């Protein structure tokens, strides 16, 4: 993003990366989002994390199941608009009662300029909850690392799908006047 209300060099992407390492995440798959850019870079630079670039988000659901079947913990990164692509594929996680850790950067909520982002952004949490996921929404950067760690514990110890929504308030929004 060209300009944001938040500082560009925020600490939270590095904190998320450390949290993923602490949670023994071995595979990370992603469809890019500006909000995840720093985290994706860190994952690509870590030769102990197997990264997979996806063409669409639902691939990451199936990939996460396959990874766990083979003994790897994984995390799936996407933007909120990608959540809509995942709904049917989430059924394979539910029916096998398998872990899923999804980190979703939000659009279409706090200060959004692009009206086309609003429909999916406003429906993201409800869509995931309707699909049976446990959903945490974080608006304070200081809460992110703890929340993601807690989410990883529920996912991998209690075998449940968990999404952490990283609010647009944390990421900052494009100010189109500048």
């Amino acid at each position, binding site marked *: 993003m060209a300009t944001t209300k938040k500082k560009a060099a925020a600490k939270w992407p590095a904190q998320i990366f450390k949290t993923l390492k602490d949670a023994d995440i*071995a*595979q990370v798959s992603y469809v890019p989002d500006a909000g995840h850019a720093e985290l994706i870079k860190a994952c690509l630079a870590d030769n102990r994390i*197997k990264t*997979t*670039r*996806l*063409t*669409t988000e*639902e*691939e*990451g*659901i*199936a*990939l*996460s*199941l*396959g*990874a*766990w*079947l*083979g*003994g*790897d913990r*994984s995390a799936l990164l996407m933007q909120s608009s990608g959540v809509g692509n995942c709904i*049917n*594929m989430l*059924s*394979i996680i*539910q*029916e*096998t*009662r*398998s872990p899923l850790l999804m980190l979703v950067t939000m659009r279409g909520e706090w200060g959004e300029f692009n009206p086309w982002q609003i429909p999916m952004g406003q429906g993201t949490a409800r869509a995931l909850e309707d699909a049976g996921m446990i959903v945490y929404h974080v608006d304070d950067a200081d809460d992110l690392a703890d929340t993601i760690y807690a989410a990883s514990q529920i996912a991998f110890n209690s075998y449940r799908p968990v999404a952490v929504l990283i609010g647009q308030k944390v990421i900052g929004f494009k100010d189109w006047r500048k």
Partner: protein
Amino acid sequence: MAAKKKITLNRRDVVSRIVRDRGDVLIVTGLGSTTWDAAAAGDHSNNFYLWGGMGGAAVTGLGLARAQPDRRVIVLTGDGEMLMGIGSLATIGVAAPKNLAVCVIDNQHYGETGMQETHTGHGVDLAAMAAAAGFAHTGTAWTKKDVEAVIPHLYETEGPVFIDIKVNTDYVPMVLPLRDGTAIRGRFREAVLGDRAHD
């Protein structure tokens, strides 16, 4: 579009022939006919049967192959299932897992929903798409002789391997494997991970 060739292979014969050589290979099957085919060929704890998540079989195989780089992983799925997750060919081509083979049992129809035709009966060449996506080895089999020729690629050739096998639409009886998803994944993880399965 190439002229249509007569297709004589029976899907059950093909899948039985493939799994005969399975050894300790891990097999992921896609919704739905390939799940029944694998069950008909003989249930096995190294089989992970998908009964849903259409379009997800190949990438489930990718996640498994990356987690178990020393094990061979074969995905057996249908043409309709593969088409629904067609982007995963690009994902697998780029990820380039050496131990993954994707085998499409291609009857050119949606077998579970009333035998409507799929794109593969209208000129779409899945093996060519896989090759264009960067798969290390690709091929299409039309005859028993072709099947014998592609089987070593499924098991041994450095991947990712993609093989499309053209089969006919002759009636085959339903043979259903385990249906409970938690049971399927529990049994599979025990087979693959032993004591680690319940960590």
